């Protein structure tokens, strides 16, 4: 099966296409097989593990969370839903901080083929912001 297709950045800056990333925010997880999401405040680079998301098979996400101002940022929640069918996952991921802005989310399962929306909640200061990303799993 082909790798999950994903290229659509849903969360972008208010001014349009992504603002430049903070200089010392590592984006390595977003290269190659990963993705980078931007919002007005936050930058999230992530990739799945294993790299191929298979229908019905558990996977994890490795994430790097930054703010544009290099303030401390925290990954609060990771969830996913199929917007077309209005249902979420049957599993609730757990998040493990790995230090230096890195996190690991375990226990994701996309149990159907189709369009999934991945929701990543990031806290910077008192603000929690949701960044969303579409993934099509075949």
């Amino acid at each position, binding site marked *: *099966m*082909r790798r999950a297709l994903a290229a659509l950045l849903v969360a972008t800056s208010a001014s349009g296409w992504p603002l430049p990333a903070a200089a010392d925010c590592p984006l390595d997880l977003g290269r190659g097989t990963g993705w980078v999401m931007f919002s007005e405040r936050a930058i999230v680079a992530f990739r799945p593990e294993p790299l191929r998301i298979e*229908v*019905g098979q*558990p996977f994890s996400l490795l994430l790097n969370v930054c703010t544009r101002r290099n303030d401390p940022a925290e990954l609060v929640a990771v969830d996913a839903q*199929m*917007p*077309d*069918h*209005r*249902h979420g*996952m*049957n*599993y*609730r*991921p*757990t998040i493990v901080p790995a230090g230096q802005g890195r996190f690991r989310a*375990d*226990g994701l*399962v996309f*149990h*159907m*083929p*189709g369009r999934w929306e991945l929701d990543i909640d990031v806290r910077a200061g008192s603000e929690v912001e949701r960044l969303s990303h579409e993934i099509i799993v*075949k």
Partner: protein
Amino acid sequence: MSRWRALLLVVTLLVGAGAEGWAHLQWPEDEVRAIRAHGPWPPPAPVDPSNRVSGDPAAIALGERLFNDARLSGAGTMSCASCHQAERNWSDGRARARGRAGLDRRTPSLWNVGQGHWFGWDGAADSLWAQSLRPIIDPLEMAGSTGHVAALLRGDPTLGCFYRRAFGTAPGSDDEALLVDAAKALAAFQETLVSPRTAFDDFRDALVAGDLAAAARYPAAAQRGLKIFMGAGNCNACHFGPRFTNGEFGDVGIPFFVRPGEVDSGRLGGLAKLMASPFNRLGPYSDDKSGASALRTRHVQRLHANFGEFRVPGLRQLGDTGPYMHNGHLATLQDVVRHYSKVSPDRLHSDGVPLVRPLGLSADDQADLVAFLRSLAADPPPRPPPLTECGAG
């Protein structure tokens, strides 16, 4: 008949077959990719890290023996094989199972059960061994007991011998541990119940290999049915992968009242049982000390939407395993297809694009879909006779 007339007849038959049965529809790349996901078959043999005797030949032999041993039941009259009958595709042909009492759900087939990750119609077990243990001690099913099973293993010399071969020690004094070991041997046996390759598998392999001539041997009606299965029907949203199931749960509009005023809550109740069970993968009886194989159990969430959901069954060897659905509500495959053609959307309460909706299939479309489903079955090869002597093999 002259040689020339005979040759002419053969040519005519082949041409006729080409027109009626040997045909291939157009299969675009995205459909070939979707069909590819339904194989290969057979899959690799399952290995369950929570079961230390999974795949072990001695445990398989013990498990097969226990599977057919009515002494596991409280009254000594019912074995696993009483309901899971090999000649009935490891089910019993009843709409609802009969144990010591009448039950509310159908006996599921055991074909390919080792490939699953949730077990039972409600997914109350997260391993095949935990699922195998449950009916033995359920008072409504085999009505055995922990002590009864342990005493049988300790007291029967032949079973004791098979046990030693499988587990490396004589049956111990811990009754519950022995019950679990018996269930793990039962699971090891059931993991070997893999359905045979079918006409669909030949078609799938040929299509993936680009061998259109071989693919064209797959009956045209089955090909048309497959188009509906993946297209208008969207059946493969849930009936996904080589087993034709994603192993999860759904509400497909089957009534869940079991008696007036009493409902079968399905997955909602199953998850409560799973979490309360000392025999789940998070408990002390799992042999996977890394905990890696308990990942689904750790992360599964119990949602209100689980009410009335039941496990999505695999579709292999479906042709003769009716009645169908979790409670035997539908007698034939034709009835199943008709159900999906006419299901009431009001019953399903979907607020998005519904996964299950009335398909409104024509009679010809329904017949094609049934032809496709029947192509997922084949005659299984005869099973080797079980070992009767502990020292044999």
